[in-house]
């Protein structure tokens, strides 16, 4: 985790589940200004549990904004990259907040609660930055609220997630499609359940008021344990998302990488219905003509583990750095992501990663590295 995301230990914020993590023996680390569990029993065991059964993640550090009012849709169309008009009530989409350069201020999930009321889930370390950015864009006929402090967000991910969660809610989860959400009763209290996640597995993210978090967490663990559910930390979350080739803001994309370069052209809408939006000119041109570089997935061919920041070179010339790199616990390989010049980014291209002064060969491979069987 980048050191820039850390702040002084005394200033770290705690989620409503902090005491539960401590009690479970979690190793706690600073992340995005929060003190978060990085692992409980071990990253590998947690990672494999999510692939084969289920894992429970506290992601309450994520931010939640609400945009409400008759102008909400047109405001969001102007500040996000994806086409918000495609959403029906109860539907969500992956999107981003582009700058005029086409690089993202953040990546977000936009959800439509009603025709005039939308939710945004944003990265923990970007809550304040995103809120300021959105205010600067001048919301018209709508109001923007940061509701992050009111909620806890718990993710249950893995092939057993549905069976475990179904025991606690009358909502028929089988009918809830990917990237859809519903208001539901959960242990007798209101919750928002969405079929989303950051692991490459089926699963749900559950939004509840902070006071409900601890009861819900404990109940899920009790009900889920016999089916293989384990608490999982940020360590496993990071290796799981990397195997699924999901970008991490601040590593694989930031204010210097365009969405097209990051391989996120699929969340950039150039539909006529989308209308003009911040960054559209650059992104539309790059989508049509290509970008100078491209984020690729690679496997280390030699011996070594690529890490964030390791130099990447092509025929002896440095062309970039590793943006994410790790041992992949399910695939049992050393994998990573990095930017390469587009003309040298095809699958099979070989290049070098400099690991502690040594050049270690790597090869561009198809992504996602891991894709679950459906």
């Amino acid at each position, binding site marked *: 985790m980048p050191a820039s995301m850390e702040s002084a230990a005394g200033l770290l914020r705690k989620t409503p589940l902090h005491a539960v993590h401590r009690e479970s023996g979690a190793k706690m680390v600073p992340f995005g200004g929060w003190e978060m569990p990085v*692992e409980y029993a*071990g990253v590998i065991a947690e990672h494999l549990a999510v692939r084969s059964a289920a894992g429970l993640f506290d992601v309450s550090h994520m931010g939640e904004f609400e945009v409400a009012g008759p102008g909400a849709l047109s405001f969001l169309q102007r500040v996000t990259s994806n086409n918000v008009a495609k959403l029906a009530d109860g539907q969500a989409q992956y999107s981003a907040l582009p700058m005029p350069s086409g690089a993202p201020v953040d990546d977000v999930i936009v959800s439509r609660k009603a025709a005039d009321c939308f939710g945004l889930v944003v990265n923990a370390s970007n809550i304040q930055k995103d809120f300021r950015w959105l205010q600067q864009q001048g919301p018209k006929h709508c109001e923007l609220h940061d509701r992050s402090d009111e909620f806890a967000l718990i993710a249950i991910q893995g092939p057993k997630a549905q069976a475990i969660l179904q025991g606690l809610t009358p909502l028929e989860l089988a009918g809830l499609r990917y990237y859809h959400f519903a208001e539901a009763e959960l242990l007798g209290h209101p919750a928002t359940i969405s079929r989303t996640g950051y692991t490459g597995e089926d699963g749900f993210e559950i939004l509840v008021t902070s006071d409900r978090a601890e009861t819900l967490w404990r109940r899920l663990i009790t009900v889920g344990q016999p089916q293989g559910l384990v608490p999982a930390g940020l*360590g496993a979350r990071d*290796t799981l998302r990397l195997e699924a080739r999901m970008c991490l803001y601040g590593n694989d994309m930031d204010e210097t990488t365009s969405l097209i370069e990051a391989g996120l052209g699929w969340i950039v809408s150039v539909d006529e219905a989308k209308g003009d939006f911040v960054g559209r000119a650059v992104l539309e041109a790059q989508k049509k003509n290509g970008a100078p570089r491209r984020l690729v997935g690679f496997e280390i061919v030699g*011996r070594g583990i690529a*890490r964030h920041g390791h130099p990447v070179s092509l025929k002896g010339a440095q062309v970039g750095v590793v943006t994410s790199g*790790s041992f992949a616990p399910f695939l049992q390989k050393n994998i990573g992501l990095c930017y390469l010049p587009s003309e040298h980014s095809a699958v099979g291209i070989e290049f070098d990663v400099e690991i502690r002064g040594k050049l270690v060969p790597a090869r561009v491979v198809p992504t996602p590295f891991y894709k679950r069987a459906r």
Partner: protein
Amino acid sequence: MYPQDLRYTKDHEWVRLVGERGTVGITEYAQKQLGDVVFLELPALGRALATGENFGTVESVKAVSELLSPVSGEVAEVNDALVKAPESVNTDPYGAGWMMVVKLADPALLGSLMDAAAYKAFVDSESK
């Protein structure tokens, strides 16, 4: 957790002395701090090491840590089996998790390292 027959460093390495040969590894505390170990780089046979010199690298899923030699001397044995099964560093740090054997330049210098009681006190003060 702190075998009596070993000597310890502040960098959480241990040494077991048999004759003039010192076997070296990392401690239970060190492996716990690292988490699941997935990669190791160990020195070449015959390499001369000074006390405190980097002799390799241990990597867990989340962390990279340099290995610093607790002793000076010549590398006489390397645990190649450990490179293929690095998880032994977690499961058996004082046994199968041994990393190298050094033919000590001066076995008497081992006395400057911590004994089990001193190391335990050091770990307790560090983890406060």
